[in-house]
């Protein structure tokens, strides 16, 4: 029928070839982008490849793995990574939730206070680490040392005595604004009538927080935890600027351990194994996070 040719509701004929030709560029780029580096890392992990001994290149079997897994620094680095992640998450989410509720209240100068509390997030990690190292935590010139001396206490050499704690403080200071920002928007999205209903039901400030605000924040807390986890696993600049992973391995996390292999020992093979280990660790964490928060994100 001639009329059939004008039937525009029929989708244009499109075979599998047509779809593939459109998808191929994207798939190709994604393949090169993600899979090739992974495969190269895998390749290097089985090779003897140290820049200090360029003539001794070749297949090494599981040599790199054996070397890394017997390295006493590895267990410490994994432990430090988890400790750093856990502590910063606890501080930023905990304090962020409380501050979000407080910053939701009406008070004089709220606009300025909100800008100020967000400021640390806009400072580059290297810069803020330098500020903390030289102006806050320095045992001679630091502000904290000044405060301690002025009340008659002996100043602490933060990066020598409690290196990981110092880094946790710096990173928490940087990430608190992010948690506060996401949680504050969540607090503000809480229906005003729901809060009023709770007030009519007899909820004071504490019951309101416990039974109304906190459950409402569940999803925002889950999302913030996941985003922060992604970034906190790879903390590097703060360690590089302040302690260089020391003393010993006291403040070395996995990403800094990889750096140590590559650029302090020039051991590409060893670094590749550590990188693979970091991927495994990230995936284990992601699995648990997704599982515990999937329920929250469903609704």
């Amino acid at each position, binding site marked *: 029928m001639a009329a059939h040719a004008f039937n525009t509701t029929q989708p244009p004929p499109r075979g599998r070839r047509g779809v593939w030709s459109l998808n191929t560029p994207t798939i190709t780029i994604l393949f090169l982008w993600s899979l090739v580096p992974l495969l190269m890392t895998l390749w290097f992990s089985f090779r003897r490849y140290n820049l200090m001994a360029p003539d001794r290149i070749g297949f090494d079997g599981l040599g790199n793995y054996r070397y890394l897994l017997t390295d006493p620094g590895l267990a410490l680095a994994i432990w430090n990574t988890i400790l750093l992640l856990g502590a910063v998450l606890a501080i930023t989410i905990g304090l962020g939730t409380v501050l979000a509720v407080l910053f939701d209240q009406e008070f004089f100068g709220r606009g300025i206070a909100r800008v100020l509390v967000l400021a640390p997030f806009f400072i580059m990690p290297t810069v803020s680490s330098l500020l903390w190292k030289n102006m806050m935590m320095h045992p001679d010139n630091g502000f904290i040392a000044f405060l301690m001396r002025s009340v008659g206490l002996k100043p602490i050499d933060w990066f020598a005595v409690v290196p990981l704690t110092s880094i946790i403080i710096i990173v928490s200071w940087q990430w608190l604004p992010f948690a506060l920002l996401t949680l504050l928007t969540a607090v503000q999205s809480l*229906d005003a*009538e*729901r809060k*009023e*209903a*709770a*007030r*009519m*039901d*007899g*909820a004071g400030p504490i*019951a309101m927080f416990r*039974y*109304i605000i906190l*459950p*409402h924040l*569940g999803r925002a807390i889950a999302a913030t935890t996941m985003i922060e986890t992604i970034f906190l696993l790879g903390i590097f600049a703060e360690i590089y600027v302040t302690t260089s992973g020391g003393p010993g391995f006291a403040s070395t996390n996995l990403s800094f351990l990889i750096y140590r292999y590559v650029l302090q020992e020039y051991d590409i093979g060893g670094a590749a194994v550590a990188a693979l280990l970091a991927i495994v660790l990230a995936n284990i964490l992601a699995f648990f996070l997704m599982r515990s928060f999937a329920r929250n994100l469903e*609704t």
Partner: protein
Amino acid sequence: MANLQLRRVRKSYDNIEIIRGIDLDLHDEELTVFVGPSGCGKSTLLRMIAGLEEITSGDLFIDGERVNDIPPAKRGLALVFQSYALYPHMTVAENMSFSLKLAGLSKAEREMKVAQAAQILHLESLLTRKPKELSGGQRQRVAIGRAIVRNPKVFLFDEPLSNLDAELRVRMRLELTKLHRQLRATMIYVTHDQVEAMTMADRIVVLNAGVVEQVGTPMELYRNPRNLFVAGFLGSPKMNFLTATVESQNPGNVTVKMADGSRLSVPGQLDISNHSQITIGIRPEHLRLTNTGSLAATVTTVEHLGSESYLHVLTANSEALIVRVSGETAVEADQQVNVEVDSSALHLFDQDGTSLRSR
């Protein structure tokens, strides 16, 4: 079960006065409806009674006790919100027992009270569900259940039916009226819908621009509106208004001259001088089409509702009127008709809009 008194109650935000001096007495076991156009302050007044808004000046008494400075939860009132404001993370039972839990009741007591309320509201099968699994009408009932379990002195409703579809609204209206009789509770109900006010109220409070225009039973207000605002607000379709002048007054009746030149003899006595401008109010059901009708008019639109029809007509000098006729009417648009006015059912208002007589 309580009496409420409002004495010279005022509310202002940043020098703008929303509630401008309200005196009211609300009686025990009555369902009082606050009705008025949007922005008249009816919700604000309710929230002031609930304690969610501060009273700028004046006194609020519940059972003789001044409660201005008592926090909302301690006033013994329960408020049902327009948006229901259910707690989404709690089940129906938890929603209803939240206030009891905060009040420190034991689990057994809470379960008993929730079960009682659920029985009254037919919610027994839904107790373990979350609000998002409920329909609009069910959520509404949970919100009411949350009020019932507290056994409040006064139930407050803030436009509770406006989020429901038309059919459900009619059904919930009936259910609420039944519930009111069943609980023998004191209720205050806020709405902008005059039909809800007329059908549900024991007593209507008509509010406009922060003041009380009139208080009374639905039929009192319908029959004897004190001013043009109340006359125009209650009744659907609205009362018709025509301008006229007083021509002569005789003992027992008054002759008024309509804008189109026709004359009407109105029984009764008026306290007004001759030749003054007045407004005549007449409800659509008090107008009839007859061959001898004094007002000549042209039909512009016919609305058939089945049981009855509304004729929208224009008089010779372009005043619009609505006439209620039988549903079987054969009148069509553009037809010429004569409208007869039932002069015993007229409302007369002076130029300030105040009714000239109270029958």
